[in-house]
């Protein structure tokens, strides 16, 4: 049964255009309460404020944080120019030439919302913020809707105002709207509950696209350090092919040392059956994961390869979150590499957005080499009978996080559960789970964003519901650090966010919380490896 919603911050839609020092603010006391021992506000790490210098240089009038770092215009003339650019982008956003990619869903969401607010109860950010109006999934959508009817559908006549309301367009609105498009993780939980089928997550996505494709304004971590770097250097991590090969050599050696099985990563093997593409963040932050894939593929006798081509060893596609052109460029690059290597299929590593971008969203660009997700692959591996598995080696409490992109947006729900039920005797679900899961709080690329004080915000606001869910999933266990508890998060981005959540709250030390992927549990259960693969000491 849904909870009653009471909004603490009273903001009207028109307030959005009214210049003020800061439109919205979240007090720690407003935040959704966490279970013990994280329930005392005074014991929490606190919420850093934006520096005065940052406020002086950039547009920071939306809320307590800042993602895009929008330079302040020099004068009114420049402001007006930017507003005109925005209107031009708005028109293109509703043109079939520029936005054939999402025109139909966007138009449907613009024209048919009943403003019933049914969706707001499903947004973990709105709830965690203490029901701050600005974070309603409907707030930014309503602003865009009013602009759509005023500037795209033509005129500001009485019928338009009567039907759809009105709003003043100025630079204050434009700059705030850009920032606000980065206060939604695009998890689409709200879209599931809309009786009409309106998708506020997609509206946030298309707003980001307008700013990126028309005004060259986007979150630096997604654009310059993300897609641009990936298409030039080879990876959004900044690693070139030499570095990643070097890393893999080290990973292979480490795997042999820890498992007793000699592992050899294969590169650029033409005619291999499988091209494996990881999120390159795994090589740096969680090398056990690519190591485990290499070991399993080898032990299964599968002919496989990695690619050392530009973007070939990094399946990340941040274009999915903000820019269809960049999305298409990277997706096409991945498909071309698979074609060139003449592989039978691409195996997509444990990463939700990678799986969605490469697996289904990019599917409408070309008829590419078939792609298989890691969950289905591991399901096949575990139940193939080719590996000897001993579930008692995973004799610790395990829960499962459902990555939104893979589960809610692709319907990959059961394979990972079948695996866990088979190899992890103390597996238990979070609630809610499956397609009704909560986002980790780092969705849409946020997990790699920590500039200014955004880390504080995404931990304390957007990740709050997930942290509560994790704690509740282990409520029947010893609450202390003596009993290690494993959060299985088969997604690089989600792991990044969960890592930051645990670090921030000291959850490893206080509650014995650890996290990792699915394949690590499979390898840990393998009878043929020496010792335990999952080592709490080094996690």
């Amino acid at each position, binding site marked *: 049964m*849904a909870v009653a919603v009471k*909004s603490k911050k*009273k903001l009207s839609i028109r307030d959005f255009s009214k210049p003020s020092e800061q439109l919205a603010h979240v007090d720690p006391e407003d935040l959704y309460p966490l279970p013990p021992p994280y329930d005392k506000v005074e014991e929490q790490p606190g919420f850093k404020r934006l520096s005065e210098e940052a406020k002086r240089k950039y547009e920071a009038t939306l809320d307590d944080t800042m993602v895009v770092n929008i330079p302040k215009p020099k004068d009114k003339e420049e402001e007006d120019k930017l507003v005109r*650019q925005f209107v031009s*982008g708005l028109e293109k956003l509703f043109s*079939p*030439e520029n936005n*054939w*990619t999402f*025109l*139909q*869903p966007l138009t449907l*969401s613009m024209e*048919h*919302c009943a*403003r*019933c*607010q049914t969706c707001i109860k499903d947004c973990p950010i709105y709830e965690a913020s203490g029901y701050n109006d600005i974070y309603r999934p409907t707030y930014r959508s309503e602003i865009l809707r009013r602009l759509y009817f005023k500037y795209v559908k033509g005129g500001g006549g009485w*019928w338009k105002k*009567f039907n*759809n309301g009105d709003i003043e367009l100025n630079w204050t609105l434009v700059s705030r709207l850009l920032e606000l498009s980065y206060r939604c993780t695009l998890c689409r939980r709200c*879209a*599931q*509950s809309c*009786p*009409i*089928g309106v*998708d506020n997550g*997609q509206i946030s996505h298309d707003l980001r696209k307008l700013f*990126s*494709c*028309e*005004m*060259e304004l986007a979150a630096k971590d997604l654009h310059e350090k993300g897609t*641009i770097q990936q298409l*030039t250097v080879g990876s959004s991590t900044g690693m070139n092919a030499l570095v990643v090969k070097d890393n893999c050599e080290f990973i292979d050696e480490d795997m042999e040392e820890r498992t007793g099985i000699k592992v050899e990563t294969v590169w650029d093997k033409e005619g291999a059956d499988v091209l494996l593409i990881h999120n390159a963040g795994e090589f740096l932050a969680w090398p056990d994961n690519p190591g485990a894939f290499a070991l399993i593929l080898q032990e299964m006798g599968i002919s496989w390869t990695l690619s050392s081509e530009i973007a070939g060893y990094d399946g990340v596609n941040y274009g999915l979150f903000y820019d269809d*052109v*960049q999305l*298409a*460029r990277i997706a*096409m690059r991945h498909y071309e590499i698979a074609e060139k290597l003449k592989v039978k*299929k691409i195996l997509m590593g444990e990463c939700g957005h990678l799986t969605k971008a490469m697996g*289904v*969203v990019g*599917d409408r*660009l*070309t*008829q590419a080499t078939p792609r*298989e997700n890691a969950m*289905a692959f591991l399901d096949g591996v575990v139940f193939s009978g080719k590996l000897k598995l001993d579930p008692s080696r995973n004799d610790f409490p395990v829960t499962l996080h459902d990555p939104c992109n893979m*589960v*809610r*947006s*692709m*319907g*990959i*729900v*059961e394979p990972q559960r079948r695996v866990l039920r088979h190899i992890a005797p103390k597996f238990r679900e979070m609630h809610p789970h*499956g*397609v009704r899961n909560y986002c980790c709080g780092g969705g849409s690329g946020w997990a790699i964003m920590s500039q200014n004080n955004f880390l504080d915000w995404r931990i304390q606001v957007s990740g709050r519901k997930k942290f509560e869910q994790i704690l509740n999933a282990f409520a029947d266990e010893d609450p202390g650090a003596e009993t290690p508890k494993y959060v299985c998060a088969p997604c690089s981005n989600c792991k990044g966010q969960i890592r930051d959540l645990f670090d921030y709250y000291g959850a490893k030390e206080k509650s014995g919380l650890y996290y990792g992927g699915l394949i690590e549990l499979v390898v840990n259960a393998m009878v043929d490896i020496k010792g335990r693969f999952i080592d709490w000491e080094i996690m």
Partner: protein
Amino acid sequence: MTFLHFFVYITIIVFLAAVIARGVRIARMPIHLRWDLYPIPHEKGRAHYGGSILEEVDWWTKPRHKDHIGELKVMILEILLLKGVWEHNRKLWFGSFPLHFGLYLLIGGEALAVLGGVLHLLGQQFLFLQPVITVVIWTGCVLGVIGTVIMLLMRIFDSNLSKFSTPSHYFNLLMLGAIYVTGILWLSGDQGFAANLVGFYAGLVSPSVMPALPAVAFWHIGCALLFMFYLPFTHMTHFFTKYFTYHSVRWEDETNRPGDPLQKKLDPQLAQVVTWSAPHVGADGRKNWVDIVTSPAPEIEKETK
């Protein structure tokens, strides 16, 4: 032809033309990138937990079994009982359900009256329909009034709704309320209500059989026609565009495997010229989507030199 006839015909023409135009406009929009949202009810054997064929190893080699009955069940529960609102916004459901179900019954009653009118013109017996028409419309109007009052109160006093409501939200509810209230007044003051309603529909085709209607009937018919006249120009067209939000977006999971026919429809879209202005896009007024996404943008070329 009387003014009433003119008003009825013009309303029907405007209503149908506007609904068809909107439907065609949406249906003819380009095929978008896949944006499925689970659960998808036609996923046979998996819909109950939200699964898809992508859960299979080598899924592209497996036959797809679509459960159209399952899809129909979800649609019926959603359309008739507003199941989504029941599950996600119970408070709203207590207003929204009677408002909508009342309308369904009213429309159902009118459809029966049209049937009666046809029988009447054909010289057939239609008396058996009259009690059914009366009961259905009575129930519909009572439910409708209850729903309208609850929804109006919520729109006014619930700050979650009021700050997002435009004048049209209140006007629409008042119009619906007026239809229901005048319907009740006509029903309660006219013992020959059903016969008169049947006669009214028959009279639209054959004016000589048009009965003498009470004044309140004209208010009722007038309100209904006015509502029908402007409805296609509002968000209330969700009564049929919901088909697209579900079937063309949420549940649209057509694959584009080698050999699938979809690519032929996509190719013209990819041949469109891009005019986005940001430098990294690299649009020059001539390049189409294929040109743009298969070659580095100018900014990227500069960095690689």
